[in-house]
């Protein structure tokens, strides 16, 4: 009962937050008409919220059977799938790196600087590079396509927070716990699976949340950058081009991207609940 009440309260807070954002937006618009603000608040620069909502039902281009909403939902789902793929690759690679770095101290000294340096490469420089290299890859009948490039970029962003978080987590067990395991003559593998993994969960889960967000951002940015067809990033660019006559349309696509990020976060939260079901409550992330 109490949980239900808390859940309802949570939903109300979330809705209240949305409502406040809408009110703020309209307030700024209204203020712009009364006093001079350092930004453009005309309908073309800041369309009314109801114009944006009204725009979702319209056909994407005249005569087409798909509405803007359908196009945005389809594109978001497509991008989410790519982001998910990137997330899974990123998590796998990140976890593997963390295990290797934890097991061999020289690897941590040698690899960690590269892991950190990898994230300083600007994404917009990386995206065309990967597409350029990827276009020349074909292994047997499998021809690289730009979708893989986008997934690669998503994975590239996603692996970093995870590998750093997981490394921290794998190193979390106390010396006494480790000594106890050693006194049982436990192998390194047994220590890894019975002690280090469970101990790393409180670090792993928040790292996964960051990774999921990074994968979504990486997907959208890489789509915009390389122009991959079918995803929400491309749709944002295409709708932005129509902003001269239909300024509200691009916001629908942006909302699609936001919803995509929220769904990704929800998936990780579900994973969190599952993974930490046996942990004592206070250590939950």
């Amino acid at each position, binding site marked *: 009962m109490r949980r239900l009440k808390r859940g309802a309260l949570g939903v109300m807070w979330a809705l209240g937050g949305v409502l406040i954002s809408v009110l703020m937006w309209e307030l700024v618009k209204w203020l712009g008409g009364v006093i001079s603000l350092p930004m*453009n608040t*005309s309908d*073309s*620069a800041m369309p009314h919220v109801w114009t944006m909502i009204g725009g979702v039902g319209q056909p*994407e*281009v*005249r*005569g087409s059977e798909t509405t803007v909403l359908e196009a945005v939902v389809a594109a978001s789902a*497509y991008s989410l*799938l*790519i982001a*998910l*793929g990137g997330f*899974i*690759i990123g998590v*796998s690679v990140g976890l593997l790196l963390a295990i290797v770095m934890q097991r061999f101290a020289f690897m941590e000294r040698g690899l960690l600087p590269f892991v950190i340096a990898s994230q300083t490469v600007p994404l*917009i420089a990386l*995206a*065309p590079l990967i*597409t*350029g*290299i990827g*276009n*020349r890859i074909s292994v047997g009948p499998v021809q690289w*396509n*730009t*979708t*893989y490039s986008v*997934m690669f970029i998503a994975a590239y962003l996603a692996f970093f927070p995870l590998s750093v978080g997981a490394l921290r987590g794998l190193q979390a067990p106390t010396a006494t716990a480790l000594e106890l395991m050693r006194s049982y003559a436990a192998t390194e*593998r*047994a220590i890894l*699976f*019975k002690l280090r993994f469970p101990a790393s969960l409180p670090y792993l889960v928040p790292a996964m949340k960051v990774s999921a967000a990074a994968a979504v951002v990486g997907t959208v940015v890489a789509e*915009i*950058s*390389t*122009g*991959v*067809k*079918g995803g929400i990033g*491309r*749709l944002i*660019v*295409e*709708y*932005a*081009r*129509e*902003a*001269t*006559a*239909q*300024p509200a349309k691009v916001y629908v696509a942006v909302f699609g991207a936001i919803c995509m990020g929220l769904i990704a976060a929800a998936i990780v939260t579900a994973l969190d609940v599952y993974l930490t079901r046996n942990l004592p409550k206070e250590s939950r992330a």
Partner: protein
Amino acid sequence: MRHIARSRWGALTGVAVVGALALSACSSSSTSSETSAAAPASSAAASAAASTAASESAAPASSAAAEACAELTPVSLQLQWFVQAQFGGYYAAKDKGFYEANCLDVTILEGGVDIVPQTVLAQGGADFAISWVPKALASREQGALITNVAQVFQRSGTLQVSFADKNITTAADFKGKKIGNWGFGNEYEIFAAITKAGLDPAADVELVGQQFDMQALLNGEIDAAEAMTYNEYAQVLEAKNPDTGELYKPEDFNVVNYNDEGVAMYQDAIWASEERLADPAYQDATQRFVQASLEGWIYCRDNAQECADIITANGSKLGASHQLWMMNEVNKLIWPSPLGVGVLDPALYAQTVNVALNTKNLEGATVITAEPAAEAFTTQFAEAANAALTAQGLNTTGDAFAPIEVTLNEGGN
């Protein structure tokens, strides 16, 4: 203990399998959607290998020719941007089976915000690329060995659009005004025109960075905005004038056309790899590619509406009237081609090089620092293509070309 450990391994493997499944589902869905997006075109090309069964969309003559091909040469073309009528000729050549008739299986790679076609070409990511001449020459100077094999657009499509009450009809009127430009190498015609009009770009004119939509012009934030005849200018005419409640009309605006200012620079051209042109097979493919592409442009000249529809069928999100407007304006940039379609005019090339070499932007940089080598362009392929197309009974100069009338609707719909 070991049992538990093993079951954990099992769980891990399970997770990996699920991951792999999700991945493969993801990649297969992506390929399938890509295939379906390109279906009208690629089905025609693919069918050629297995005779002509499925190539209903290809012209009868070309499918007969396709049968004569032992096999199709796979080549790829990198565009500067998403599919739109600016690239109508290539999509028409693919859809109408001109590539297939020339024994080519062409993959058209769409561009994106950060895709630089001439770099993709130089790195071997594509066999051919579409690029503006000054940008390609700049890349060439930085080491990209590429050659202009067909100069498709014979004139520049860049305009400076302003409201009529600003009285900006020539570059000399830019004085003291806020002039929008896109930067990133798109600004050199503006600088050249300002300099040619005897003004100092740093002192006499306020140059303002411009977004890719035209709101800054309509809101009065800038006095004159850079616009392409085939895109941004149309966007302005598709927007509602809040004072009248109707769409803006051409007479509401003045346009400065950089062709008239004498500073126009060559734009869309087909570029090939200079290194690979030494290879007879690539040379042969280039010849066939240029010829089929130019045939596609001739088709779009005579069938503007159908070409616009082909582009929309290939996944362009532009509205119908905007698409047709773009097709028509692009036709105006190509036709007439007095020397033959795709044949580079040495005089306009010299003007392009001259502006690229001598116009300094605000940072004092020029597009190129030295005269490009003679290998930067060749007219051999376009001339041979013109001869072949003329022999097919096609008019390759478009001397009788008359643009159609396009009425733009709100939002380009």
